[in-house]
């Protein structure tokens, strides 16, 4: 099996967001593999451990992303590819077009990604890529088995489960519950240093100028309004419960 994992580096979930000069500040921020992509990396490695083959992790993003790709190599991926170029905007149409250009001359059985990235939260790039490559996709997958050239996948549909059989090659995005990602081991970290790591720019790809024109642009960035200080109710618990219900009735149209 040849498995590609598309991966994005994101802010650690502990990070608070600070905005200055119309940008989210990155100074001092800890970065991680997008948690959903991490499930995809883990799955790809398990597939290779079971049935052989090769796992390639690929990211389109700033130079700092190489750190996350290294982590994926240390977990057990075989090769990494970073496409880093200032001419690539964050627009999902553009990012997916760049990935599609990379995949144009590749062969693969599976492409795995995350259900969405926890920073931008759009959940577009993987599904767009599947369309551009004209392969089937299933998103939000919590179970993936590969008997005889097909994939049996279970998709989480807002709590309901949908079981599908899909012919390969196909693209799937990982949802929480698919697995428990491993931590890189010390030997894994050492080995990762010697694994192939390809650094590409747009000059290495064949891509139409039109595909680099962003379809969306940001005009404003802001923090949500801070919540006003709340109230800690007092008294015996039954009194507090009655008081709360009273407050909700006067304040909320719902009750």
């Amino acid at each position, binding site marked *: 099996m040849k498995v590609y994992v598309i991966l994005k580096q994101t802010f650690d979930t502990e990070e608070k967001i600070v905005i200055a000069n119309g940008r989210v500040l990155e100074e001092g921020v800890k970065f991680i593999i997008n948690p959903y992509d991490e499930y995809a990396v883990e799955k790809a490695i398990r597939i290779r451990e079971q049935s052989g083959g090769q796992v390639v992790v690929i990211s389109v993003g700033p130079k700092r992303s190489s750190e996350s790709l290294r982590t994926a190599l240390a977990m057990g991926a075989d090769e990494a590819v970073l496409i880093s170029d200032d001419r690539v905007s964050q627009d999902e149409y553009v990012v997916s077009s760049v990935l599609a250009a990379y995949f144009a001359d590749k062969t693969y059985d599976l492409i795995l990604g995350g259900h969405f990235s926890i920073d931008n939260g759009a959940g577009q790039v993987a*599904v767009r890529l599947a369309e551009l490559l004209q392969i089937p996709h299933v998103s939000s997958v919590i179970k993936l088995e590969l008997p005889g050239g097909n994939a049996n996948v279970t998709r989480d549909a807002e709590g309901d489960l949908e079981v599908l059989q899909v012919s390969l090659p196909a693209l799937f995005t990982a949802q929480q519950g698919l697995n428990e990602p491993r931590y890189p081991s010390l030997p894994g970290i050492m080995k990762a240093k010697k694994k192939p790591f390809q650094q590409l720019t747009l000059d290495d790809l064949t891509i139409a100028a039109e595909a680099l024109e962003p379809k969306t642009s940001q005009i404003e960035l802001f923090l949500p309004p801070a919540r006003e200080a709340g109230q800690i109710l007092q008294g015996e618990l039954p009194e507090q419960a009655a008081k709360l219900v009273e407050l909700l009735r006067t304040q909320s149209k719902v009750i």
Partner: protein
Amino acid sequence: MSRTYTIIADHREGTLRQVTLEALQAAQIASLEGDRITAIIMGTQLESLAEELAAYPLSDIHLIEHDSLQHYNAEAYLSALFGVFDTVRPDAVFIGHTAVGRDLAPAIAARLHAGQMSDVTSIERSGAKIMFTRPLHAGKAFEKKVFADFPWVVTVRPNNIPAAQASGGQQAQVVRTTYSPTPSLRSVVKDVVLKTSGKVDLTEAKIVVSGGRGVKSADGFKPLEELAEVLNGAVGASRGACDAGYCDYALQIGQTGKVVTPEIYIACGISGAIQHLAGMSQSRIIIAINKDPEAPIIKTADYSIVGDLFQVVPLLTQEFRNVLK
């Protein structure tokens, strides 16, 4: 130039989802006089849905009814949809940011070579400019965006844009289309397990009662379920509760779970980690029930009761039962 805005109707267990009407409202905000707003419904047994939708300000409603569309399958839905797009020719497509919309919208956008904004919480029009607000970092920040050009695709976050009102005027025209599935589908739905049947949808619920590690067991969720039932709300959870195996990951709220924006959010035995807050802090009223007065959730909550949830939650259920009778 007159534009066509198309809503893809999301429905569940034979009724329209509220988010469909919110998507329609978004289309109304985007549209100008003379523009057309159309709807497309896919699935089986669509007559009553079409009737329901016909009361809203739409120029026409396209029904694509076929057994093979009973359950969502991206490939089948896309081929059905693009059949109708040949006649509808949408300039913009609106759909809920739901299990179906999240999966379908980027594929539609890719096929239309269109831009997409996901998970939009608000939309404004000023002259020729249509602006979309959407969360970043699960709501730790927000951005406003514009499209470079038509066509485009938008997914609408449930519970944020007010629902469209029925027009009471002229009924929309219902157009039935035949659909013959291609035999060459590469993906087949083998089984669907409806675990949420009959329950209030978590992302659309007006009231969410959430449990954390403090509920201590799967059984510990029972009092929360009772409270949710009395309030016609949904039950959610922290990752702490999911990781401990007290409930399904499908209930998880937070940065790596669902983002909810109900009218009332009741956090029971949840400490209020930053990842959890990201998923619920845009709720209108937040209530914390926690035995630790220092728990961070109390700083975010509008009202807090410091105490044992196993005492407090049944008391609340009783109080609500009394007043809602």
